């Protein structure tokens, strides 16, 4: 994906625009219809409330148009097993299945950039980072009571250099693929 494609993607994602989640789900249903498969990817699943609400929104969208919701699978990189069981055994009609990458509780998972990921866009490049910083600085002018907190966050965001984080994430992904390949080769070798 080149830079321009990414910008388009970002624009489609609705960053900067108030797009109700319900509308976004209706768009998804329009595009994939009832024969489609949708994969939802989240970083962390705590107690299933996101799932429940997504399920409800799919249900509402489906009943509104008298259609069947697409097959929706939910994946979280990280989620405690006991909560997963709760989520999976809930009244989820439209989320077909739920699974997690790991249930390890050791991770600080993405603690370093969590706050910037929470912001309005996910910073495709430094100019986005600058825009975010300016926005937050503008807020600081009128929100002095939380100024220090925001200031710390802004500093932290600046330090993060999102493009380097992106490179790191891609690098880890490539390494994981290499690791899977080598594990597969080893297993095949062991069997032979």
């Amino acid at each position: 994906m080149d830079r321009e494609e990414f910008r388009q993607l970002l624009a489609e994602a609705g960053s900067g625009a108030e797009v109700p989640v319900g509308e976004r789900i209706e768009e998804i249903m329009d595009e994939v219809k009832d024969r489609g498969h949708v994969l939802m990817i989240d970083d962390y699943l705590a107690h299933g409330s996101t799932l429940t609400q997504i399920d409800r929104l799919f249900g509402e969208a489906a009943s509104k148009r008298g259609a069947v919701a697409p097959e929706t699978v939910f994946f979280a990189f990280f989620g405690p097993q006991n909560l997963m069981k709760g989520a999976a055994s809930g009244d989820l009609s439209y989320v077909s299945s739920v699974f997690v990458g790991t249930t390890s509780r050791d991770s600080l998972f993405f603690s370093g950039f969590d706050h910037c990921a929470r912001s309005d866009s996910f910073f495709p490049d430094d100019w986005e980072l600058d825009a975010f910083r300016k926005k937050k600085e503008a807020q600081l002018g009128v929100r002095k009571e939380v100024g220090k907190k925001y200031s710390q966050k802004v500093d932290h965001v600046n330090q993060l250099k999102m493009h380097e984080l992106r490179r790191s994430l891609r690098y880890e992904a490539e390494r994981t693929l290499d690791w899977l390949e080598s594990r597969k080769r080893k297993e095949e070798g062991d069997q032979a």
Partner: protein
Amino acid sequence: MAEEIAEEDNRLELDSTEVSKVRLSERYLPIEDRVVIRRGLSRLFEYFESLDSEKLPEMVVFPDTAARVLFYAVGPVLKRVYEQRGAKRPDFRFFGHLERSQSRIDRRAWFGRGIRRGD
């Protein structure tokens, strides 16, 4: 797995072309996070492997703003799987402004406290 990744780091750092990438990764992603990424992507890869080609998702959605950056980690895996299968690349969607949307998805339970791990 953390030990395994650390060993890999040491081995890769012997290669001059890899050393800067390893250092960068270490700088931005604590080993605990890298373990989660590896386990997560492995699990995701296994999931895709278990699917028939026609069942591969046509759309991938990141419902939470905090998860958006994972697009970059998931991308190479999706690319590998879809190219291997000769399948059309999926579309991506991101839900924006969950907390302020009309149909709120309540993230406050764990966002509000500033703690995102289970308690």
